[in-house]
């Protein structure tokens, strides 16, 4: 199956089509600047810092922006601003927007394949498989948009003349520490379940494999996801995660990619404003997903309604 969807052959460099005729006569390649994704725009880090992203074998790939705590602050403000509008969109509409993201990702497969192969140290064939799996997973989550309420909601029997409903509502602004060992599939496996229910996210991409995250941001920016619903920061996890965990305007934090030794401290800071915490549980990102991650990031609202009115 994978072979039929293979990208242009020999894309060794990240996402670049093989040299054209003109390159032979000394064309200067136009290198991509990998920046942050905050509020629907691509700013450089406020701190002006950047760091080198490398292949698994240590060879230089590209410079990525190194976000600071002030970028975290800006990203949370952007997420807070965008969240109510995203949550207010109909579930059907959110689903359609997410399908559209999958369409945009499909178009960028060659670029993703190049980046995943380089960052995760995979051969092209495996990388193609991972990228296909990623797009399919996004589609799977998109399908959930108008089904979560049926699965997580209920009509409850009560001893009185009332209807009693429970409906899932988004938690709000969710901070996500993306998995460190799977630059694209792992990333999508934590972003998609958070936003499908109407949350907005601030994501810290895998520290040593940040490039695919920014390419995903480009797919998000060219689909119809409102600016600010997904914000992606690249940089040092140990620098950014504590700021997010302590931030009083963040409602939940997914510690999927937090280094084990940091987890207790992050959970302690998260307790300050009673953030919902999704603890790292050794999820195998390659395995088929379950609805658990989506359900961990919704809150149950129960409504009593008198019968006959």
């Amino acid at each position: 199956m994978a072979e039929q969807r293979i990208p242009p052959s020999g894309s060794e460099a990240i996402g670049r089509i093989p040299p054209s005729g003109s390159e032979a006569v000394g064309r200067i390649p136009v290198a991509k600047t990998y920046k942050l994704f905050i509020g629907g725009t691509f700013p450089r880090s406020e701190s002006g810092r950047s760091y080198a992203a490398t292949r698994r074998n240590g060879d230089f790939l590209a410079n990525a922006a190194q976000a600071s705590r002030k970028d975290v602050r800006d990203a949370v403000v952007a997420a807070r601003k965008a969240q109510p509008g995203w949550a207010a969109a109909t579930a059907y509409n959110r689903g359609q927007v997410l399908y559209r993201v999958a369409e945009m990702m499909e178009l960028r497969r060659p670029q993703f394949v190049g980046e995943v192969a380089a960052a995760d140290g995979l051969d092209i064939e495996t990388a193609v498989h991972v990228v296909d799996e990623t797009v399919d997973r996004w589609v799977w989550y998109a399908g959930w948009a108008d089904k979560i309420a049926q699965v997580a909601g209920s009509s409850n029997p009560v001893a009185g003349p009332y209807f009693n409903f429970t409906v899932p509502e988004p938690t709000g602004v969710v901070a996500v520490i993306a998995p460190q060992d799977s630059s694209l599939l792992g990333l999508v496996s934590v972003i998609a379940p958070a936003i499908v229910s109407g949350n907005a996210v601030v994501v810290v991409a895998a520290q040593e494999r940040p490039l695919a995250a920014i390419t995903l941001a480009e797919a998000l920016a060219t689909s119809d996801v409102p600016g600010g619903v997904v914000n992606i920061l690249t940089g040092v996890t140990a620098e950014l995660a504590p700021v997010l965990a302590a931030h009083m305007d963040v409602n939940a934090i997914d510690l999927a990619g937090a280094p084990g030794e940091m987890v207790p401290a992050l959970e302690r800071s998260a307790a300050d404003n009673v953030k919902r915490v999704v603890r790292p549980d050794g999820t195998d990102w390659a395995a088929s997903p379950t609805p658990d991650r989506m359900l961990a990031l919704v809150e149950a609202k129960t409504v009593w309604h008198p019968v006959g009115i």
Partner: protein
Amino acid sequence: MTTVAVTPADLDAAAASDVSLRRFLHGLPGVDQVGAEARAGMLATRSIKRGAKLWALDMALRMTDLTTLEGADTPGKVRALCSKAMRPDAVDPEVPSVAAVCVYPDLVPTAVESLAGSGVRVASVATSFPSGRASRAVRLADVAEAVSAGAHEVDMVIDRGAFLAGRYAQVLSDVVAVKEQCGNAHLKVILETGELRTLDNVRRAAWLSMVGGADFIKTSTGKVAPASTPAVVLVMLEAVRDYAEATDSLVGVKAAGGIRTAKDAIRYLVLVNETAGQRWLTPDLFRFGASSLVNDLLMQRTKQRTGSYSGPDYFTVD
């Protein structure tokens, strides 16, 4: 930046007639708009370090005129605002009170009662705010009502129509009449710079107001966009600086409208320090007219105190 050098005698002569006033105001050096914006922009990039930032956040709070000027204002809302003015952060008694509460004239009695003995002043907009389009008798009655109800400060609007048409003497006599009606209350003259179009006009309106006896010159009503911009405030600060040189009397500046973040407020403080000088860094001579600014200042203050970023959930909804 250009310094305007005039003598008190020049000002007296200028105020004599419409012709002399026009000659004086149009004789003021023109403002280099590009230069003013560039200078304001350059000062905005200055980095303020931690100790200075803490000082600046508190100073900005003490300079704020906490404002509510909506048609939907109620005595209850004004009382809530007054409580906030006296003690901006309910959980931190060390946070200083703001300078004043700014309301419409009919709500002045409520504000005066709520703020009694607190040191927070009551400011009232008057003269048919925000348009000022009423006869002088009506506008003066508006001022009289606010003052007799106990307002310490009166914010008047100038007749922008008359100003733009060049009837400077009319504007001047308005200011003089309102100043007289104010008695002991401080007079702030709103130039509504968003309607004056050019920085040259801002400079002229500023001088005109000061000649008329303004205690403060204020950028805007907050009802017209653009409201306060750094370049406009820069020109006004130059005007009060030059007026102080000429007459030894200190006139304040109030930046109002569109200032929502602590960062903006601190940029204005840099502008004040670098243009008019340190003498103006006091609530007696520089004010912010704002409502949402206070919450952002409190959030930044909390950040400096606790080390983690705060959120709007922890502050009042005004």
